[in-house]
């Protein structure tokens, strides 16, 4: 293909719960050619993806032949686990342990709620079958696997309607032989079954978590293959070049080839938030900041993610389908590397109420999109954060969603007035209180997230996006002591861009326990060779050449006996080189984090990690020439709003149209900026300037 003749375009489409967002970018100019929103078809999300694709073609924006890169993020897996839409899945395990799925970790996740339910396992009782086999703590085979019995067991499960099988044997993270042998015979006998092995999906010690992950993987395999595979085929039929694959976003913030996603589809869980974090990192870099704290506030939740050296950290585990969304321990554990972020129930739709103590609470209950905040006029009557922001003058009654939606101030006032009467405050004070409590909740979450990594949030720039984030960011920054806030352009649809800047990447982890001073480094080498081969075959499937892949190694270390590790990066697995360095790095990290180092205990390694990363997405945004500092040409109106440090009343503030702001324009708080999908608030004392990429970089004024 002669690429110099054709334009080069990249397309991302991000299937969310409500909308599917499309972003089309011209790779040569770095400009966004088109953005499009399509209502997500809950029954078959690929229908809405295809509809959007056709719409973009009909608009004349999309030329399939020009596409160099297509990236797809989807909530398909997350929703399938929540809504129980996966395959009828069976579980084959070691004799004596079929009920482990029901036991879970046997812990109360709310110490005062006697009746808090536990998540229902994905495998029904009748599809859990045991087979004779046993491996012990050092990988020794105590009882040889009865393969014939395993095949018989699977036959009975197939007869009972199972179309997917998860295999999980005890200690298979140390010795995968039994699982592998069972799998070989089963796939020979039942070639149509979807099979997931715990030694492959999550070779990590801890049987409940490992099995839970493996089952979830088997559970969504067919669904992902049919839905995503079908979509990819359709796109190729509709003009996408045969040599342009559709890449899929994963939870760890890397993209993989679609064929690779089918192999281990559980990695698609929570890929949307990962895209948001990547977008934050990208915008941070454009503004010259590699250390940013992203604040993504949407309708239901707010998410904070710490980005250091331009990269979001990874956490080793997440929970799917929580019974109570904001209570850890109430979901199904899934051990996959996932972008490390903290999520709390504070969004635009979060409902404010008075609790039994007479205190004002905001969230985690949310009015969501339906009925939505009272001011949407869609039937909601409860006061929400969005209603408060309307009363405070931050949101425009007629300019919401770029003028596509009118907000009903009377409805908001009625909703908040009711709450005000209960609190004994006036209506505006109540709205102000809702705004403040939401700010505090976000700041508290962001602070805990930073502190857990032993980072001082004051040293980071806050990067605010999501539909509701930019209203609150300047106030949240003051609580955190952060001195700068960056508002990227297109704050309402940042995730779709995140997909396009994602690198082709795969994150792998395996348990191989041992003390650093007596470690079998040859076994570690062997482990890394295997992981690198696996990673390379994934990346090769996506067309990445070996020499363009960077391999980053890290290992989870702890003091002998501890249950929680710190992850330490290291250069290579050379037998002599890294060991003293690993010890040194661990001691430093540990002392930083916990204040004091304990001596006399050996250092143990548990899980070895590999992050294999290909080149980053080719998207480069074009810089504009800074012009006049005077923003008056972008002034839409002035509006009364309440601001920090300006007493209890409303004061007049300028309202700018973001689409009319140009690089170089300077804004002074108090000020409001409106864009299609979000509203930005600059508090008094804030000084913002539009940078060449259209982001508004704000120096935060004095604390309130």
């Amino acid at each position, binding site marked *: 293909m002669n690429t110099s003749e054709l334009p080069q375009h990249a397309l991302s489409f991000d299937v969310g719960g409500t909308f599917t967002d499309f972003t089309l970018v011209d790779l040569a100019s770095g400009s966004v050619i088109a953005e499009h929103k399509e209502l997500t078809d809950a029954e078959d999300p690929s229908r809405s993806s295809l509809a959007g694709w056709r719409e973009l073609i009909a608009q004349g924006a999309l030329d399939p032949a020009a596409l160099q890169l297509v990236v797809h993020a989807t909530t398909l897996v997350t929703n399938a686990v929540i809504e129980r839409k996966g395959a009828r899945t069976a579980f084959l395990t070691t004799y004596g342990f079929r009920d482990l799925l029901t036991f879970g970790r046997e812990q*109360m996740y709310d110490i005062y709620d006697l009746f808090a339910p*536990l998540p229902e396992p994905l495998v029904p009782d009748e599809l859990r079958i045991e087979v004779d086999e046993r491996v012990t703590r050092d990988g020794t085979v105590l009882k040889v696997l009865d393969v014939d019995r395993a095949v018989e067991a699977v036959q009975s499960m197939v007869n009972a309607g199972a179309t997917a099988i998860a295999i999980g044997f005890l200690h298979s993270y140390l010795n995968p032989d039994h699982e592998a042998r069972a799998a070989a015979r089963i796939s020979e006998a039942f070639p149509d079954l979807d099979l997931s092995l715990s030694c492959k999906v999550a070779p990590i*010690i801890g*049987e409940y978590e490992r099995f839970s992950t493996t089952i979830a993987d088997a559970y969504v395999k067919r669904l992902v293959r049919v839905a995503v595979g079908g979509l990819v085929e359709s796109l190729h039929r509709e003009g996408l070049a045969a040599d342009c694959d559709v890449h899929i976003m994963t939870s760890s913030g890397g993209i993989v080839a679609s064929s690779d996603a089918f192999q281990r589809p559980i990695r698609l869980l929570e890929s949307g938030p990962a895209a948001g974090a990547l977008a934050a990192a990208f915008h941070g870099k454009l503004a010259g900041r590699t250390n940013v704290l992203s604040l993504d506030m949407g309708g239901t939740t707010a998410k904070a993610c710490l980005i250091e050296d331009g990269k979001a950290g990874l956490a080793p585990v997440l929970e799917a389908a929580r019974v109570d969304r904001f209570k850890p321990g109430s979901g199904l554990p899934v051990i996959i590397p996932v972008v490390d972020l903290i999520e709390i129930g504070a969004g635009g739709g979060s409902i404010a109420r008075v609790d039994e103590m007479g*205190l004002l609470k905001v969230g985690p209950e949310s009015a969501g999109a339906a009925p939505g905040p009272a001011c949407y006029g869609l039937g909601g009557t409860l006061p929400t954060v969005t209603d408060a922001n309307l009363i405070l003058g931050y949101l425009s009654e007629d300019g919401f969603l770029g003028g596509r939606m009118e907000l009903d101030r009377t409805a908001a006032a009625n909703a908040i007035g009711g709450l005000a009467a209960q609190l004994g405050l006036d209506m505006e004070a109540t709205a102000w*209180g809702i705004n403040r409590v939401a700010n505090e909740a976000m700041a508290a979450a962001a602070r805990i997230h930073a502190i857990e990594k032993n980072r001082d949030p004051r040293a980071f720039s806050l990067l605010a996006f999501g539909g509701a984030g930019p209203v609150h960011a300047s106030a949240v920054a003051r609580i955190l002591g952060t001195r700068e806030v960056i508002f990227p352009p297109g704050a309402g649809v940042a995730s779709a861009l995140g997909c396009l800047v994602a690198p082709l990447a795969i994150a792998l982890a395996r348990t191989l326990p041992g003390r650093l001073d007596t470690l079998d480094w040859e076994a570690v080498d062997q482990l890394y060779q295997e992981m690198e081969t696996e990673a390379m075959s994934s990346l090769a499937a996506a067309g990445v050449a070996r020499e363009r892949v960077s391999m980053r190694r890290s290992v989870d270390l702890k*003091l002998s006996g*501890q249950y929680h590790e710190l992850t330490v990066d290291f250069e290579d697995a050379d037998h002599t080189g890294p060991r003293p360095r690993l010890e040194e790095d661990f001691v430093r990290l540990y002392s930083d984090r*916990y204040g004091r180092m304990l001596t006399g205990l050996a250092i143990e390694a548990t899980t070895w990690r590999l992050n294999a990363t290909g080149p980053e997405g080719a998207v480069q945004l074009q810089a504009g020439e800074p012009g006049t500092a005077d923003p008056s040409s972008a002034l839409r109106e002035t509006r009364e709003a309440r601001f920090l440090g300006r007493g209890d009343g409303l004061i007049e503030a300028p309202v700018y149209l973001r689409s009319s702001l140009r690089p170089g324009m300077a804004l002074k708080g108090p000020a409001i900026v409106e864009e299609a999908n979000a509203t930005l608030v600059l508090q008094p004392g804030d000084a913002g300037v539009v940078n060449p990429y259209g982001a508004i970089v704000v120096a935060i004024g004095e604390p309130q």
Partner: protein
Amino acid sequence: MTLTHLPERSTTPAWANDPVGLEIMWSRLMAIADEMWSTVLRTAVSSVIGAAQDFGCEILDAQGNGLAHASRSMPVFNLVMPVVTRAMLSRFPVEAMRPGDVYVTNDPWICAGHLDDITTVTPVFRNGRVAGFASTVAHATSIGGMLDRVRARDRLEEGLFIPPDYLYRQGEPNHTLFAMLEANVRSPEMVMTDVAAQVAANDVGVKRVNAFLDEYELDDLRELAAVVQQRSEQAMRRAIAAVPDGIYRNQEAVETPSGDVLLKATIIIDGEEIWVDYAGSAPEQPVGGINCTFTYTRAHTAYPLKCLLTPSIPSNEGCFKPMHISAPEGSILNAGPYASIGTRTKTGWHSHGLIFGALAKAMPVRVQAGNGLMHGLYAAGREVDGKPFTMYFFTGGGRGAGGGKPGLGYNCFPSSAGNIPVEVFESRVPILVEERSIMQGSGGSGALPGTPGHRFRLRRLPGSNADVRLYLHPDRLRHPAPGLFGGGNGNLTRVLLNERDITNGTGHMASGEVDLATDDDVYTSETAGGGGIGEVPDSPG
């Protein structure tokens, strides 16, 4: 000369009546307690803390009143940290406290009722004055003493008693105490590391509370505590007032090594206050560690009441002011200073069933039928190379029905601990777990059935030639988890060695030690099922 109008310092700060400011400040303190909690979790080395999470953290005011605890703290620990802190204040005058001090005790009469729970208390200093405290309680993997708690005759046999003392004085370790502790426990490196985790967590709490006081320009936590406690108290009073006034009674049997004894509760609800009295309960028992100290009894009375009355309010001192709890001195629920107390859960955990049963008529939808209760095993011995090991293995019991629902699976209530993964357990001790399964049909029957109990079976790791002994003090060997409103009881607990009931069908265990002498010895326990609620509806036809 200019007349300057100095603002008068009002007695009540502005935020005291501000439902917004107060919410923000209190949430901040709870977040600090959570951070302390995660510091312990991440730095402790024992399974009982690191995996099962048997510990708690709290922020207290300068008078030792609890203000905010970690959201996943062990519930009973939240109730004893204030008692310990006030006991420290009575022994170490506040004027004599210095920055860098850390106080410690495991005194079961002020702490959590057995010697195994160690409490550390660290004062928060501000402008040379004590502004509040950060405290942590955690279950030590060993405190010395005999392992077979079923045979203990007094607390002196049960391990080391640490009277309230300095652990650190102005930053200097109390070397004598450290040496005494280290010399008197099994797995000393594990115990000492866990204590260090507690101290580190308190350090974190102290640092963060100071930053909090800076931000709000407060001298101490007293005013905030008073306001929060007052509001919590009011909420509790309203909840009590909603329960019909009356006198409610119940009794339940407790299994002692020498036979059954009774616990009796009389609950009086009168307006906004509640009285719980245990008069008529059995006297202190001479053997078996089943006695409760009053601090422990009080905590296990207040906790179930809190669950029933105000489950959504974070616990603090104010919640408990409208509660009046008493037990006769010298009784099994208010034992004297030398009583054996090592298996006190076998008594204390029955306060929940007692209270739920007593209040069943008054609060029919909120009470819970009897729980199967958690089963704790303690494994100790030596690997073949001589290396000693000690480790707990917890499994939860079947839950009782309640709240309009059948028993919902398994948890360790009234402890908030979790179980320990089999792979983790096996990787640390030479034991092979052969089975963990549900015993179908062992839950109490009913319109809302209880959760069945479960079976677990284990043996010495074949070929390990290790010395392996188990210590246990199972409950519900003779008295099942009771059903409510006509619901059936759960099945009893059974403990088997080589498939034979080690009590020979009597339900009496004279010793809690089980020796796995050979590879062929198989230990099995079948834990009790939860109680059901309501009669089984007639099946159609």
